């Protein structure tokens, strides 16, 4: 029988069933996210092939150094997240809190660079379609299309990161209150899957958006 303090929710028979169910649920959720981003990636791929020159020109207008730095930041944050999961599995509360904090901080660095250093900069440079787009060089039409994709794709990605930050904050508070133990760490694992997924999306976005056309 289950009581309200049980680590196993009422609808499940045992911890194993609960764990497997949560895992399967999170993987399914990630599958939906793949489909969500997939539409954008497909559209992008079609236009990138149709308007190669325009897209390459536009890609060169992005700051690949900042993009690369952000990629490193995210990869590090995935490392700290994986370490957080391990800390949770082994019941190390202090380490869990430290690693969750590190992940959050790295995420915030990413968001700062993305929004303040990149987006705001692009807006001032007249590369923000719909708001302030003044680029008049060759293939202007296709450059604008590229930037439509750029803002939507990195925007949707950033939104996922912000949601992730929110969930991390909740998990942080829970960890602080000692809610996790070697018996109960599943939420941290699930968050780990989600965070890695968001990271992988960026790893696709970075070369597709920032590295078109020869640069060296």
């Amino acid at each position, binding site marked *: 029988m289950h009581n309200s303090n049980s680590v196993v*929710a*009422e*609808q*499940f*028979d045992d911890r194993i*069933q609960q764990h*497997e*169910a949560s895992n*399967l*649920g999170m993987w*399914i*959720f990630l*599958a*939906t*996210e793949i*489909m*969500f*981003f*997939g*539409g*954008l990636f*497909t*559209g992008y791929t*079609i*236009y990138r092939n*149709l*308007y190669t020159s*325009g897209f390459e020109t536009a890609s060169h207008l992005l700051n690949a150094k900042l993009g690369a730095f952000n990629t490193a930041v995210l990869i590090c944050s995935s490392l700290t997240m994986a370490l957080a999961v391990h800390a949770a599995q082994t019941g190390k509360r202090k380490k869990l809190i430290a690693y969750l904090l590190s992940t959050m901080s790295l995420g915030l660095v990413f968001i700062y660079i993305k929004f303040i250093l990149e987006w705001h900069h692009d807006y001032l440079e007249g590369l923000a*379609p*719909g*708001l302030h787009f003044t680029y008049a060089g060759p293939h202007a*039409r*296709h450059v*604008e*299309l590229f930037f*439509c*994709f750029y*803002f*939507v794709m990195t925007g*949707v990605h950033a939104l996922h990161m912000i949601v992730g930050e929110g969930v991390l904050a909740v998990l942080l508070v829970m960890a602080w209150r000692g809610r996790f133990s070697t018996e109960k760490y599943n939420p941290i694992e699930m968050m780990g899957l989600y965070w890695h997924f968001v990271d992988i999306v960026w790893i696709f976005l970075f070369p597709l958006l920032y590295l078109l056309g020869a640069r060296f």
Partner: protein
Amino acid sequence: MSSAEAELPIESRVHYLNADYGIKSWLLTTDHKRIGLMYLVSITFFFCFGGVAATLMRLNLLEPQGLLVEPETYNKLFSMHGIIMVFFFLIPSIPAVLGNFLIPMMIGARDVAFPRLNLLSWYVFMTGGLLTLYAVIAGGVDTGWTFYTPLSTQYSNTHVMAAAAGIFIAGFSSILTGMNFVVTIHKMRAPGLSWFRLPLFIWAMYATSIIFILGTPVIAISLVLIALERWFHVGIFDPALGGDPILFQHMFWFYSHPAVYVMILPSMGVVSELITTFSRKKIFGYHFIAFSSIAIAAIGFLVWGHHMFVSGQSIYAGLVFSALSFAVAIPSAVKVFNWTATLYKGSISYDAPMLYALGFIGLFTIGGLTGLYLSTLAIDQHVHATYFVVAHFHYIMVGGAVMGYLGGIHYWWPKISGRMYPDGWARVAAIIIFVGFNLTFFPQFILGYLGMPRRYAVYPAEYHTLNVVSTAGASILGLGYVIPLIYLIWSMRYGREAGPNPWHATGLEWTTASPPPPHNFEETPVVTEEPYSYDRLAEEIQVA
């Protein structure tokens, strides 16, 4: 639960309806059965809205010049009819109502895998629905439920954003439901319940959930892009930017075609249950029906371009999509033949659920066959976007899906409410619906081939007669829908108490009380036999 206890009068037992009282016990419930009921009320509410829109449309079409409303208003009516019926009635109908109620019970579980997400899905659904209703009340949307660009992004000056946002939000409800069902079916089956012992309703719901999971996100992103283009002029479909309005069509139909299988697969699952119970017979070709559900879901993702044969899409794409569209018809045909064969040497009764099931088979057959016309490139070039298409999909959606839904509601009503409805009235209503339906929609096949375009508020005089016939049928159909609303509500108070298994059906849900206790089963059942074991059940009945 001992069978003696299950036979006790309803009010002397604790069951899911009386276990807790008060509005909070409903709005904060995590019981899948209560959530199913909440969805039932919600979608009935939306069905009424969509039905009112349809009524006004058909009334308007009584006259070639438009009897009732200006074209501007008519355009809003058909748009709202489509949006509400598709997204807020059909797609949730069987999954959110019957799926939620029955899946845990059919597999011997206490609840779904994620009960709180289940409750969240209802709130998300209501939020989306109310936002869309706001769009109606604030003045409507006139883009059609298909939101084609650039009409929706640059030219329409109606409440596109609110409607798109409402549908977007409601989509998450589908995703959560799909996720819940897949995990529940994978991980929470009772001991002994292997995959091929599952009722076919579960197979159908599983296939439907796969579509929910993989398809819904694509319309989500399509609607986001519409909103961005409309609000910020960030234009991915904008020709002025080198964008392609046909890309929107591809993205939209990539979801919306599988969505129609979301609307029909659950009904097919219901029909499998009804045919077996009311023929007292094992289903013919269990494995074929189970696999055909999966095949329909899979192939259904590959045919979206058949909505675009004349869009400017290449000939080669047209050929591929046409061939695949024919392929997806085969598993459906297999089901129809297997259901018919199930009747052979059965023991058939004519209770209302069976009338709905038989009506489904007939009308779905016609609807499905007319799909072949539309898959045929040369024919589609003539009938695309005419009333032929309108007739085709209403045969499937209304003659198929809604009949299956009503059949399921009637069949499981005793389990849900603990009471029987008056079967005489139910049979009469089923027949009225069948007659009214055919009178409404069969003339539309003819109208379509004669060339009457869809989404026309006014039309040339030569189409007058058939439109009048169609509207006459619609009034009968409407009457048919009102009757069950009345007697089902009546039965909740005054209906005869049903007992655990009024239909003497197989299936785990019939082994527990009606209405069921909050945790469905007092003890986890153990499954030892095939589904639809009516041969064994008959022995038991004879022995008892």
